[in-house]
């Protein structure tokens, strides 16, 4: 157990954007990710898209999970993705959206660069499995 052992960990940002104040789901996700051995940064409530971008860039996360239950995903998610691109962080960040997203919007979000959308009732293992299988390659 030397100090120099390589110790790669999956880093995730669990983010609540906008005015939606329901974070029970985000908490449950954060805990499940932690128990899966991930390092989870939780953003706290009511974050602006710029804050999410700032956090994702500075924390250099592999996974950005955005939780939205307010229906404002079509406004907020594009702003986050734009911001990530601005800092050259979009390419190697796996962007996930969780919450209540209509099917049509889901397609639009994926078009935009969201890797997957997880609706209510998705088993936690499924989300974790998806992350493990789709982790961005790092140089």
């Amino acid at each position, binding site marked *: 157990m030397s100090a120099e052992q390589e110790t790669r960990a999956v880093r995730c940002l669990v983010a609540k954007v906008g005015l939606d104040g329901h974070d029970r789901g985000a908490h449950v996700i954060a805990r499940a990710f932690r128990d899966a051995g991930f*390092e989870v940064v939780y953003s706290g409530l009511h974050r602006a898209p710029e804050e999410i971008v700032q956090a994702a860039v500075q924390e250099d996360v592999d996974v950005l999970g955005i939780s939205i239950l307010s229906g404002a995903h079509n406004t907020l998610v594009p702003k986050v993705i734009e911001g990530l691109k601005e800092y050259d962080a979009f390419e190697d960040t796996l962007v996930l959206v969780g919450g209540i997203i209509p099917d049509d919007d889901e397609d639009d979000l994926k078009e935009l660069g969201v890797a997957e959308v997880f609706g209510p009732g998705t088993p936690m293992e499924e989300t974790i499995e998806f992350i493990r299988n789709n982790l961005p390659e790092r140089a």
Partner: protein
Amino acid sequence: MGGTERDASATPRSPELSDGDAALVEDLLAGSHRALARVITRIEDRAAGYRGIVAALHEHTGDADVIGVTGAPGAGKSTLVDKLAAAYRERGDTVGVVAVDPSSPYTGGAVLGDRIRMASNVGDMDVFFRSMSARGQLGGLSMATADAVKALDAFGKDVVIIETVGAGQNEVDVVRTADTVAVLVQPGSGDDVQTLKAGILEIGDVFVVNKADMDGAERTLAELEEMVHRREGPTKGLDGGHHGFEVPEHPDDGGEERDSGDGDGGGGDDGDEPPEWTPEVLRTVANTGEGVGELIETFDAHATHLRESGAIEATKRRRYAEEIRTLIRSDVGALATAEIERRGGIEALADSVRRRETDPYSLAAEIVEPIAECVDSDAT
């Protein structure tokens, strides 16, 4: 010695810089946030080539004031750090923050929650906030933190704040990588002050009673003052530490003692000991920002004290000595581990001891022998 291409990964000890990493270092020095974030990730991961990166950054470091903030969970560290960062920004300084949280010893997972409190610095990229988890490395955490601080320093941050829970030796080591250490205490927690006695007291340059608007703040302030002043006589503090009050050794040390740090600068002790810094005891209410200005002034005063007394050189020498030692210990340890593997692994060796075929001392001597031989042959 493997082929040329795999050399870097074959010898992780080598501080060589690959072309890609050289570009990364260049980007960091040019001010790319992405590059800075990526470098810190490499440092945290102890990923191949990170040593070359840190080695290349070293010459660009040394300009930042490095401040450590520690204290029990719930003392208000994150909130205070947020307010400190905002105050530094107000006077035009750029700020880096490294917040260290514990990780689960079972899964390695962690929830890094300090970011939630960083409400005053929203969207301000000149505050670079980074959460790190302990990742269960023995002794590795303080190295990783020190290296992350170097990255922020080289990036050009004027102030770098290290925030960590003061829970054990690991955390004490982490916070010792700072030039100035602030220890946060909650009012009314006699227990907290008890904890402080167990080692954190020695590392504090500034003691902060946060949440000073709560009941019991005055008492905690008084207790801390008493402890700080008892610490001034290094030999006296060693015994009788459990009694509440002792007969004061200096009958005249009333309330006027606080300025002695600046006052007796010329006197000092005999020999080449730099004049001592008397730890300050301050009060803050991090929620409202009360006392944050004074706290920063005290940090500045301590930094000035370190520079003018020459203590900064001693501090840095001690720190780099510790870094060199940790690295060498870890590298030599890795050599020994490799040798153990060559001999069938530690369990096989342990079994041979269990069967009384050999004993631990003989085995250790056998394994270290080839390393010792190399050292000896170099010496002659």
